[in-house]
């Protein structure tokens, strides 16, 4: 049903209506709808860009995994080697003495003094002996080629009264310990 408005009211209405509608929609757009839309797509674009920059490609990840696995195998092998060269018994000093004393005896060393102890992660063997020069060299060579890790900390030779050489030797070996 058509409403008959006074002429002046009608003119005012048709002049103002577009401005009022435009103003209301501008407010609605700027404060609510467009603001939310802008925030939403900016957040999504930013997240997408961040992920694109951070997430690596499967191919490069595969390469990295291969490299890490290779490193792990190598490190595992070296750790096994280190464990194999370490004294693992409950009394490492005794074990070190048990390994070296017969060895040096077989090389002709006449042992006069043996002292074994374990301290601060190391098993230490102090010994005094008599031997001739070739026997000393041979004994030291046998120590060098032992599968157990051995460090000669001190070594001295001097003439002894019997015409042979007096030997003082301190050998240390690391004790196995889990981190």
């Amino acid at each position, binding site marked *: 049903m058509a409403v008959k408005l006074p002429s002046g009211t*009608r003119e005012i209405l048709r002049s103002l209506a577009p401005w009022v509608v435009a103003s209301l929609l501008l407010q609605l757009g700027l404060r609510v709808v467009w603001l939310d839309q802008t925030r939403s797509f900016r957040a999504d674009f930013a997240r997408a860009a961040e992920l694109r920059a951070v997430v690596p490609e499967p191919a490069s990840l595969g390469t990295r995994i291969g490299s890490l*696995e290779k490193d792990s195998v190598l490190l595992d092998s070296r*750790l096994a080697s280190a464990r194999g060269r370490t004294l693992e018994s409950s009394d490492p000093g005794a074990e070190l003495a048990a390994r070296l004393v017969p060895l040096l005896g077989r090389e002709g060393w006449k042992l006069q003094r043996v002292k074994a102890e374990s301290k601060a992660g190391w098993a230490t063997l102090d010994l005094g002996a008599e031997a001739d020069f070739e026997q000393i060299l041979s004994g030291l060579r046998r120590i*060098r080629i032992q599968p157990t890790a051995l460090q000669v900390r001190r070594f001295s030779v001097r*003439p002894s009264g019997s015409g042979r050489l007096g030997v003082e030797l301190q050998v240390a070996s690391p004790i196995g310990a889990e981190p």
Partner: protein
Amino acid sequence: MDQVLDLLGGLPRVALSPSHLLNGEVTTPYGQDPSHEGIEASWRDRAGDRPLPPWILLGRRDTPNGTVWRLCWCPPRGPSPTLAEIVLPEGLWTLERLAAESSPQGWHLRILGSPGGSWVGLWEGARCERLHGPYPSEAAGIERVRAIAAGAGIESTAEVRGTWRIPSARELRALAEAYPESELLSTTESVRRTGIRADRASVARVLAILALFASVTLGLGVLQAAAWSLRRSEDARLESVQPLLDRVAALRISRAALADSIWIRKDALAPNTPVDRILSGISRKIPEGSSLQALALERSDGGWRVRTEASLSDWNQVQPLAQSLRSVPGIAKVAVASQARSGTGVSAVLELEGEWP
């Protein structure tokens, strides 16, 4: 599209409508434009009490009695077009088209063929004296106007033909603005139609604003959808590589643990001390007839240090011995700490330093 823009701009629609053409004239004092009252008086002389119709001014001619204005009254002929707020007589547009032609000197006829019929005007130079039409045939129109001209004692032989074309909305609005007296609609009808047009313009503007709002919202929505799609794609990529990332993290932790274990056991990985090689290298450099009396070896930072006493046969063997010891692999430094006579020979104390070979 132009019609929509015209509506949004609140511009009126202008249409042409057939009308009668009643030629006449008004004389004004020299140089003055004809007044509404003057034209109405001229119409009353001709048509009595009939309502004053719209008119078109054709042209002017200055005479000793004043300025004579030739004009055409245009009583409407038939109903006016309904889709227009301003309705002009077709003769007005015809006059515009004929006036656009180049004007020869003297009296001549200007003829224009339009869809509604043929128009014939009597012109003197660039001034229109009379306009008649439309005639069903061009020949009839020419004959009629020639007869009128002959009756007025005018000899016209030349004929100029104009070109008809449909006027654009802009040209029609310009015409309406230039010739407001030619409006065929009554004032009441004109006001009514203008009001309706204004209502429609207002509604169209509101709709246009709504459309603009919807367009901007839709545009931003498209951006939203694109951004969402992009993000979803990247999220999917992240999900697809997540197992690989977990595997990398686990391997890194495992590698770090292995490296820590190895670091703790790094002494176990060091090669065994090659004391025999150092001792053997030193002993090979002792000259014939000489001997080492004592030797003491200690570990130092990153290497070893040896102090030994050598018994040599004479002084001259000390420096060559020191020099030759420098060539032993692993020996970096040889120093003679002291030398002294001992019995028949010489006793030299040597200090050696080096790294494990």
